[in-house]
């Protein structure tokens, strides 16, 4: 391993600009003549728009224009779409209702935009936005998905009965029912997977600039996948032909899924820029972000596990209602279906699984992928069931897991996925050693002497990452392929630019991708730049989500580098007057087998461009190669997290005493960055388990609409984490990588709740397990049983 190659904890190339305040986030970009967009948003969760009067607002100082949904319709700007088709059990396609970027006739959640003020400053725009008079006829709202399906519930979209988008299922019900009938033990749980607000620290932003001279539109925005944004805004919204629209996602301050999606605001900024013929910028307030960023999770599930007398799992069944909010966000349909039910086998050999999912509209913000997307929900179901089953059957929870681990690969689960490798016993054992599980009973006794309750919880999780083989996802309803692209440009001086369709918003691609190139070409890491996030520079790509940039994005780079090597060897052969087959390439040097002839990588690069040693008929000049890599399977990162907590019985407050994570991510390029991803994931998962929750009141008002009410995890909510690794290579990509971005968020909620329930001795606790919730649970236990 070289100091900058694969496996080295190389310090990040991108850091200098961030630690000196020179990052360029979307709001930092300015264009001459820039105007500011301020949206007029609905204060009601559900209402008809009877009229909108913009006259007074238009007359306000600094106002350039005020635009409404009616004008958007007149200009034939199309609706936003959900790009993943799900079919119901009865074969009917999902029911997707119209989602205009500005509501013209009806609003369906608080924060729905009904007009936009284009002004010289944000302050002037806000002054004018208050002067826009909207006459609403308020309608009853529904925020609870079960209530939304009930007869007589307010109908959110006129064309969609019972507010039900689809009623989907996966697995063989008959087999599962038979297994349950024969089971010795059945564990049943009712689970709420709480609604979360992603809260990337950089709020969403968009800057649109229309160039009348060329009829080109440029959009800077906070996107995890600028090419997909351009495709949707061109092909579906119809804003401009794809080649007349450039999307740039510069530095992006965190995404966690919430910046995958195509949102109304960027569409409106583009449209408005063309109308006012000036650049239009919108930057979300945090309050707007709470109302309009796609939220995450929000499942209500009943789940059951069937076991035989020896604790062998026979079957699992689950029925879930997923709240998708007022509109179907870009990938919302896939999250509670193919990203969820396909992972219900966990790390276990479960012969039969059946899952039913109803997706429902409510008068709340749209819900879509948030770090883990479906897989945290599945892991929570499986890992809670297993832990509770162990307790009910009085089997050690680690032992029950071991009895059911999959140990032979490949393993076909009953829910589509074919696991290609892993060693679940290894990660469990290592985690138990690191967490000193043996010493836990003593620690629990010591804590009890201080009036504290200690608990220990496991989560042996699995996820499907590296999404994904295009043919496979296509057969499941995806509207796009999920390959990735790379272009490797070797310059005449031997430096290299890699253009990738992946996008980094904190993951450190500028470093890890360069490590790969440095090692492979034997050139200093300083001589490699990674270019991403600009549709004018980079060939089409699919972006970053689902822990795919390593396994898919870097595989594409490997494939392009393979081609570079082949071409460079041809050049070297001409240079050294040798047969192409005799050229060897190692450590940045081309040699001729059996001779002392050699050429440095830089010399070969120069010769590729000056082309003095070969004719055009013999070889094309230049050294640049492109690859589109389509993976052969998902990857399956897995591992074991162990959480140890202590509860103050007087206040109910939970303190995390120790956190152990042992993950198998396959090949690791940069362990420093990988550990950082694990830390961040754990923090988000612990946040979900202990603190975070988005709540709407019955009228559809968001009660947790700011960081004054929505509890964001802070430094003092955590201890330092203990992170370890095991390694089995993924057989499904050339580097053997599996992906690490979501594991922490997937594993951790179940570990926390398993620890709390272990401590307090009741399973009746929901997320977030706030101090109040834990105290209430303890009170119920102490209260004399009611007659």
């Amino acid at each position, binding site marked *: 391993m070289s100091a900058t190659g694969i496996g080295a904890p190389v310090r990040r190339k991108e850091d200098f600009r961030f630690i000196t305040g020179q990052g360029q986030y979307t709001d930092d970009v300015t264009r001459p003549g820039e105007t500011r967009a301020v949206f007029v948003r609905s204060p009601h969760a559900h209402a008809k728009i009877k009229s909108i009067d913009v006259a007074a607002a238009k007359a306000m100082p600094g106002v350039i224009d005020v635009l409404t949904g009616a004008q958007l319709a007149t200009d034939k700007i199309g609706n936003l779409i959900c790009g993943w088709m799900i079919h119901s059990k009865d074969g009917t396609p999902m029911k997707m209702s119209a989602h205009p970027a500005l509501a013209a006739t009806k609003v369906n959640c608080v924060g729905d935009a009904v007009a936009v003020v284009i002004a010289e400053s944000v302050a002037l725009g806000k002054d004018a936005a208050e002067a826009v008079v909207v006459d609403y006829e308020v309608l009853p709202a529904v925020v609870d998905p079960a209530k939304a399906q009930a007869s007589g519930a307010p109908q959110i979209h006129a064309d969609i009965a019972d507010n039900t988008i689809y009623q989907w299922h996966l697995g063989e019900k008959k087999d599962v029912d038979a297994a349950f009938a024969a089971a010795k033990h059945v564990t049943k749980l009712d689970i709420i997977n709480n609604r979360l607000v992603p809260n990337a620290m950089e709020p969403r932003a968009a800057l649109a600039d229309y160039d009348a001279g060329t009829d080109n539109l440029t959009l800077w925005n906070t996107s995890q996948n600028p090419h997909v944004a351009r495709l949707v805004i061109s092909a579906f919204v119809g804003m401009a032909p794809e080649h007349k629209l450039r999307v740039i996602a510069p530095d992006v301050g965190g995404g966690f899924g919430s910046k995958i999606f195509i949102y109304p605001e960027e569409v409106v900024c583009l449209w408005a820029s063309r109308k006012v013929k000036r650049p239009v910028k919108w930057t979300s307030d945090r309050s707007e972000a709470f109302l309009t960023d796609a939220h995450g999770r929000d499942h209500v599930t009943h789940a059951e596990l069937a076991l035989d007398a020896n604790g062998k799992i026979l079957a699992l069944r689950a029925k879930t209602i997923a709240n998708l909010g007022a509109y179907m966000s870009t990938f919302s349909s896939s999250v509670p279906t193919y990203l969820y039910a396909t992972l219900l086998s966990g790390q276990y050999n479960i012969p039969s699984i059946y899952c039913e999912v109803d997706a429902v509209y409510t008068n709340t913000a749209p819900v879509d992928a948030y770090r883990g997307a479906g897989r945290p929900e599945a892991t929570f179901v499986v890992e809670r069931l297993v832990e509770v089953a162990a307790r009910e059957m009085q089997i050690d929870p680690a032992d029950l897991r071991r009895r059911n681990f999959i140990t032979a690969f490949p393993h076909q689960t009953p829910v589509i996925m074919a696991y290609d490798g892993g060693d679940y016993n290894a990660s469990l054992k290592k985690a138990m050693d690191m967490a000193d599980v043996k010493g836990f009973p003593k620690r629990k006794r010591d804590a009890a002497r201080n009036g504290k309750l200690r608990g220990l919880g496991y989560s042996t999780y699995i996820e499907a990452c590296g999404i994904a083989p295009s043919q496979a996802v296509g057969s499941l309803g995806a509207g796009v392929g999920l390959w990735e692209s790379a272009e490797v440009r070797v310059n005449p001086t031997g430096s290299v630019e890699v253009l990738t369709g992946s996008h980094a918003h904190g993951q450190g691609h500028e470093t890890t991708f360069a490590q790969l190139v440095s090692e492979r070409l034997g050139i200093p890491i300083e001589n490699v730049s990674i270019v991403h996030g600009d549709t004018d520079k980079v060939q089409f790509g699919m972006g970053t989500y689902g822990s795919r940039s390593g396994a898919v994005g870097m595989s594409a780079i490997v494939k392009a580098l393979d081609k570079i090597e082949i071409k460079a060897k041809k050049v070297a052969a001409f240079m050294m007057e040798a047969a192409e087959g005799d050229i060897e390439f190692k450590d940045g040097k081309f040699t001729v087998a059996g001779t002392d002839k050699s050429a440095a990588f830089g010399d070969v690069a120069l010769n590729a461009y000056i082309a003095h040693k070969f004719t055009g008929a013999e070889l094309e000049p230049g050294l640049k190669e492109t690859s589109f890599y389509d993976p052969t399977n998902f990857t399956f990162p897995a591992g074991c997290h162990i959480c140890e907590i202590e509860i103050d019985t007087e206040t109910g407050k939970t303190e995390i005493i120790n956190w152990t994570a042992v993950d198998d991510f396959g090949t690791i390029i940069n362990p420093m960055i990988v550990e950082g991803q694990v830390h961040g994931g754990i923090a988000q998962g612990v946040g979900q388990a202990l603190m975070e929750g988005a709540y709407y009141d019955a009228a559809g008002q968001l009660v947790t609409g700011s960081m004054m009410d929505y509890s964001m995890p802070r*430094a003092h909510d955590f201890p330092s984490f203990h992170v370890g690794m095991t390694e089995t290579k993924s057989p499904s990509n050339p580097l053997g990588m599996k992906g690490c971005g979501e594991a922490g968020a997937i594993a951790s909620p179940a570990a926390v709740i398993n620890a709390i329930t272990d401590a307090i001795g009741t399973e009746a606790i929901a997320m977030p397990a706030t101090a109040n919730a834990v105290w209430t649970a303890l009170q119920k236990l102490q209260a004399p049983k009611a007659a």
Partner: protein
Amino acid sequence: MAAVSMTVNGKAVTGDVEPRTLLVQFLRENLRLTGTHVGCDTSQCGACIIHLDGIAAKACTTLALQCEGSSITTIEGLAEPGGALHPMQEAFREHHGLQCGYCTPGMIMSALDIVRRNGNDLDEHLIRDQLDGNICRCTGYHNIVKAIESGAKNMAAK
């Protein structure tokens, strides 16, 4: 509009602003010092932390006019003019104390204020407690805490 003058990163600056202009807007929009960020609107997140007369303050909860005659240091003013990084900046890079980088300027400015108040020998518990006014969504704080502990030590050594 009202005239305002102050010293920012050692340079005298003036501006003509609406009284409702926040210090963070003045820094970002008038002076184009965009390293100071806005992450919330309720004084919770700390992405906007600067030093106001040597003391950490949230620039989103301070009017520009309140800073008349004051001296402000932003993230852009930390490295030496020759480009040498401040030991605290260096520590964030060395310990991978940042991912997306958005909270980072506020974290670094906050870290320096922790050192000002508590000296160079900081323990983990104190750092976590004193980071109460800074929110990071990427790192789980683990490496930020390590960076601050190390950066504080290196400041003493310098």
